[in-house]
């Protein structure tokens, strides 16, 4: 019991850490996006513009906290937290290093899948309480999308569970072998795409498409509350990358000691970069394309992956 409370504290601590990670993520995205668009990106604030995000954050904190006149005030204020806290909590089960996860629970893999799902509620609450048609539609779209992509994502992760014979992330890491990369390659791709959809990033960002819905469910948010939404998005991106890099790609298993940690960070960074790359390269999907992609391609693929893994598991 106390372990669980401790894990919660650890998770929240990790949450504060991911604020920093998010700061880095935003900067990194700007730089990568700039490169993709054949420009330099932020460069004036600090060396290579590294302080740009901090400046932005300061600006956002200092901006007026606008609450729409019609809004359901309490729900409106609660919503960003409901989105952010689960994302922060999901960090707590990630195996950061050999034998160490902030919250070492026997159901960690499921925890990582289940807890971020709570964000949907926050998104719905936020979109609804804004009393704004765009926001509401965005919220509903986001919820539908997230629920739909949760399924292939969970199935993809389950193939790892099947291979390791445990839901404890550290057990999975211990059982990990390089062959898994080949065996679970399709599952990893499914996981990667679904993770992008989970955090509503392009090309799956139709819920918050500026050109259609202004900004979707957080159209009416501003200042610090808006930045919490953004933090949740970047946090989710980083968390998914960390988790994927760890359990799918082996993380620190490649090298012992500190070297392994470095490999883990490098893999995570690569995944984050890949996400940024995808976002700035591919056009946005329509809502119906998005759904049919989830249900007609991703889910079957994940199921096939799961079956294949179940069959070949004894030899791995």
């Amino acid at each position: 019991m106390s372990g669980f409370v401790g894990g919660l504290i650890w998770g929240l601590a990790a949450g504060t850490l991911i604020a920093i990670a998010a700061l880095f993520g935003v900067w990194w995205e700007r730089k990568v996006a700039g490169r993709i668009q054949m420009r330099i990106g932020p460069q004036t604030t600090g060396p290579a513009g590294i302080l740009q995000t901090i400046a932005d954050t300061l600006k956002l904190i200092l901006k007026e906290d606008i609450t729409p006149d019609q809004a359901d005030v309490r729900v409106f204020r609660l919503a960003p937290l409901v989105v952010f806290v689960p994302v922060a909590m999901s960090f707590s089960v990630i195996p950061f290093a050999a034998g160490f996860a902030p919250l070492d629970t026997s159901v960690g893999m499921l925890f990582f899948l289940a807890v971020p799902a709570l964000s949907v509620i926050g998104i719905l609450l936020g979109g609804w309480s804004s009393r704004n048609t765009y926001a509401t539609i965005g919220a509903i779209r986001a919820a539908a999308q997230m629920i739909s992509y949760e399924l292939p994502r969970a199935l993809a992760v389950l193939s790892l569970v099947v291979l390791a014979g445990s839901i404890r992330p550290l057990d999975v890491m211990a059982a990990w072998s390089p062959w898994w990369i080949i065996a679970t390659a399709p599952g990893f791709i499914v996981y990667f795409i679904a993770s992008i959809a989970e955090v509503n990033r392009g090309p799956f960002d139709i819920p918050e498409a500026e050109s259609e819905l202004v900004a979707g469910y957080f159209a009416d948010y501003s200042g610090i509350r808006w930045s919490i939404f953004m933090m949740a998005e970047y946090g989710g991106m980083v968390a998914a990358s960390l988790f994927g890099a760890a359990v799918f790609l082996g993380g620190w298993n490649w090298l012992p000691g500190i070297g392994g940690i470095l490999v883990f960070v490098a893999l995570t960074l690569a995944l984050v970069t890949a996400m940024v790359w995808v976002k700035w390269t591919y056009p946005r999907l329509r809502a119906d394309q998005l759904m049919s992609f989830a249900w007609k391609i991703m889910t079957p693929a994940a199921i096939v992956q799961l079956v294949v893994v179940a069959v070949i598991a004894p030899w791995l």
Partner: protein
Amino acid sequence: MIAEFSASSIAFWLLSAVSIGSAAVVVFTRDVMRLAISLGVFFLTVAGWYLYFTHAFLAVAQVFLYAGGVLVLVLFAIMFLRRSKAGEPILESRHSTDSVVIAVGLGFLVVMSLRDRVPIALPQQAFPTTTELADILLGPMLPHLAAVSLLLLVACVSVLVVFGGERE
């Protein structure tokens, strides 16, 4: 009864307070959003109860299914039903004494029927591993699992059927 002051008892009192509180809000609130949020809190406390009974897997499943699934559906339903009603989201109740009597009576019956059976303290239980769980679900309880799976499938199909009328 004097409860031991321990982490376990703190968790118990906290869970009791939060779950009863959120349930009361669900039952008495006039605000539909508050109802939804309280329902979510209630679902989470149920997950907490499972943890309290050392069933972590159940707790995660509860979070996954209810907090992440059913609650979203409830919110969807609220949005569907309230779409036309632009005004204040107000829920009405017709609080009446007979409902109170029935509810209290039934609760009392439950408590009275169990009062001799339940010890005060919970025994420390072994922490079941997921392998064990899988063994049970795919072993002795396989028929149950199959039945529930079938039920789930039927539920899915019936939901699709019910919503199928939407297409014009």
